[in-house]
Structure formats: structure tokens, C-alpha cells
């Protein structure tokens, strides 16, 4: 399972709608309406989708996985396969 961690040039914080990312080299923002699915502290720490979704039902793991893949595609997270 891929391992995800926040990119070193990116910061993130929790907001009522989900996550707010800040990309340091461009000072740009990305608002992600992820609700309670992911917590910023987990992204700073790093882990797999299964670890991030440890307390969720199995079908939610798929949603977390696809969200993590999208964030990695935007280069907000880096991924180790």
C-alpha cells in the first residue's frame, strides 16, 4: 500500500470544510472539501490510507485512498510505493 506524507514545501491545517493547503514556493492555496476524512496531523506524520482510515468502515478506506491519490497528483503529498 502506498505511503503518503505532506510535501516538505507544503503546509496544511484543518478547517470546518476539510483541509486548507498552502504551497510555500508559490504562496498559493488549495481548499479541499474533505470533511473529517483526513486530519492535517496525519499528513504531517505520514502513513498509508489504511492507517489514516483505521477507525473507519472498509468502504471509506477506498474514498480516503482516492483522495490521497488526488492530493499526491497535485504534489501536495509525496508518495512512496
Amino acid at each position: 500500500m502506498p505511503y503518503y506524507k505532506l510535501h516538505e514545501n507544503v503546509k496544511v491545517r484543518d478547517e470546518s470544510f476539510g483541509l486548507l493547503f498552502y504551497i510555500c514556493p508559490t504562496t498559493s492555496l488549495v481548499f479541499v472539501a474533505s470533511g473529517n476524512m483526513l486530519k492535517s496531523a496525519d499528513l504531517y506524520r505520514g502513513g498509508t490510507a489504511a492507517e489514516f482510515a483505521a477507525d473507519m468502515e472498509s468502504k471509506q478506506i477506498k474514498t480516503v485512498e482516492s483522495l490521497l491519490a488526488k492530493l499526491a497528483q497535485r504534489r501536495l503529498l509525496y508518495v512512496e510505493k
Partner: protein
Amino acid sequence: MLKNELPHLALSAPVNVTWEITRLCNAKCLHCLSSTRMAECQEELDFSECRAFIDQLLAAQVFQINIGGGEPFLRSDIWDIFAYCHQRQLVTCSSTNGSLIDKEAAQRLAKSPYHFLQISLDGPTEKVNDNIRGKGSFAIAISALENLIKANFPHLSINTVVTAANYKHIAELYQLASFYGAKLRLSRFRPSGGGVKMWEAYRLSQEQTIGLAEVLSAHTDILTGDSFFAITKEDRQHLGLNMCGAAKLTCAISPDGNFYPCAFLQQPPFLCGNIRRESFQKIWRQAPVLQMLRSLQVNACENCHRFDICHGGCPAIAWHIHQDLTLPDPTCIESAIKNKTHFLV
């Protein structure tokens, strides 16, 4: 993923904070936002108060401080303030006239990846710039730019306040910035501070506003400050958030610690508190002025076809002209187009 409606929800903290860190200045720009107000400013925050304030911003997870003044480099402890921010990976974006950016300062600045710098320049030639920013200011700004380029400073922009006195020269300023490998960033001129006296002479006419929108559409890599969404065409709308950020994404702190919703709303009715006496986060969450701005509706704009991308434009301009935040931005492009149509009919 980026949704313009999301920032309308109250954020837990601002994304960036404008911090006018000193009232000292060695220039006399005619349109200066701060000139009149700074004279009333009480004692500046000292270094230990600055450190405590930065700690509060870090605790609130603010991402960026926009440092201005006055001229921030005139503060004797500015390098310690930068170091305190950058060691904690807090991004700073400083606005300077360049007078204190010699070779050594440029090399020092280039060492931090967390530093962005805007050099103020209001014209591509000495004649245009110095008429606005004072004799000798063009040469000073160019020397700072050259020192920064030689030091390989990466995050450099030229900041221009667009007025009737320089709007014709934006394309040349763009070329000048490109020559130095810098970005050009435009700010709107507002009738605030020294801008009140210069308003009639410097405000853009309707034709000039429409002309500026054309230039901006032709150069989508020109950066724009707050509230340009009210004066640019639809083709630039995807380039940023189309909303007033005051009280939602940003706020401003004066040299003596007063907390305001925005650098352009620093009048007594908008005072939210003072960070010497109250916690930053408490003011952000509870100040009635901020809550009022978060729910501000510019009803008079609701029938405008641009409402979804503009929401009424810059309330600071409406307030400075009409003392009413609920009126449309009086200098928006739609009013320029409408009025121009009137002239033609």
C-alpha cells in the same frame, strides 16, 4: 479541488496577516496608504512583543506574514524578526522601497527560502516613477533589484500601484520586470491615507479601467493584489479567489498592535482590538467588526451579471467614497462599462 465558495466559511485563522511593522519611512510617496495614519500611531511593538506575536500566529497556523510599513528595513531588529519567522518556516513577504537593499543585504535575504520581496516601483522610467514616489526613488529601486538579482534572490517582484499617472506604462513595467527575471504585481489605488488627497488626480478613469483590463488579459502572468476581480475581465477569474479577503482570509496589524480587518480599513470604526491586550485568535474569532464583514451583503449588486465572480468588489473603496460598506465598489469595471455606454449613446 479549489472551490471559490469554500473561503466564505469562516476560517479558523487568517491565511496571511498584513503587518505594518514600523511607522518609520524615508520616502514621501504621494499615494501612500499609511502616511497620514502612521502619524497617529502610538509606540511600536518592541522585539519581544514581536516575537510573542509571531508565536501567536504560529499557534493559529497562519501561513504567511506580509510585512510592510513604513519602510520595514528601517527597523533595527528587522533581521532578527525575519530570522525568528524563517527558523519556524513562516513565510514572509516584505514590501520595500529598496533603499536599504545593498549587496550585503541582498545576499543575506537570498539565504532564506521563506522570504518573498516586493520592490515598489511606480513607473518604468525615472520621470514617471519619481513624480509619484519622489526624487531619486527610481535609481534606488533599480539598484536594489540589481543587487537582488546578482545574489540570486528567487522570489522577487516589482509592485506598482496603478494610477492615472502610470497606467499607460504597465506594459513597459512588465518588460522591465521580465528583464530582471522578476514578476510584476499590481495594486489598486485607494482613497486611503495620502490617497485621499490624490484621489481625483490619480484615480483611473472609466476608459483607463477598461484599458487596464485589456492589458491584464493580455498578460495573465501579471500578479494582482486584492480586489482586482472587480476590475478585470472574466478570462482572469480562474487566477485567484474572487472575493474580498478582509476578515475571511486576511487581517492587518498596525505598528502599535491594533488589529483591523484589512490594511485599507484602518479607521476607528474598524478597530477590532489590540494584540498587546487580547489574544490574536480571540480577536479573530470574536470581534464584532469581523463578524459583520463576514456576513456583509452588497445587495445593490445582486442583479449584476458579474455578481458571482465579484460579490460587490472592494468594500474599502465603497467605504472611503460613500462611508457605506454595503454599496458596490464605485470603481468596478461594470460601472466603467455602463458609464462608457452612456457616453456613447
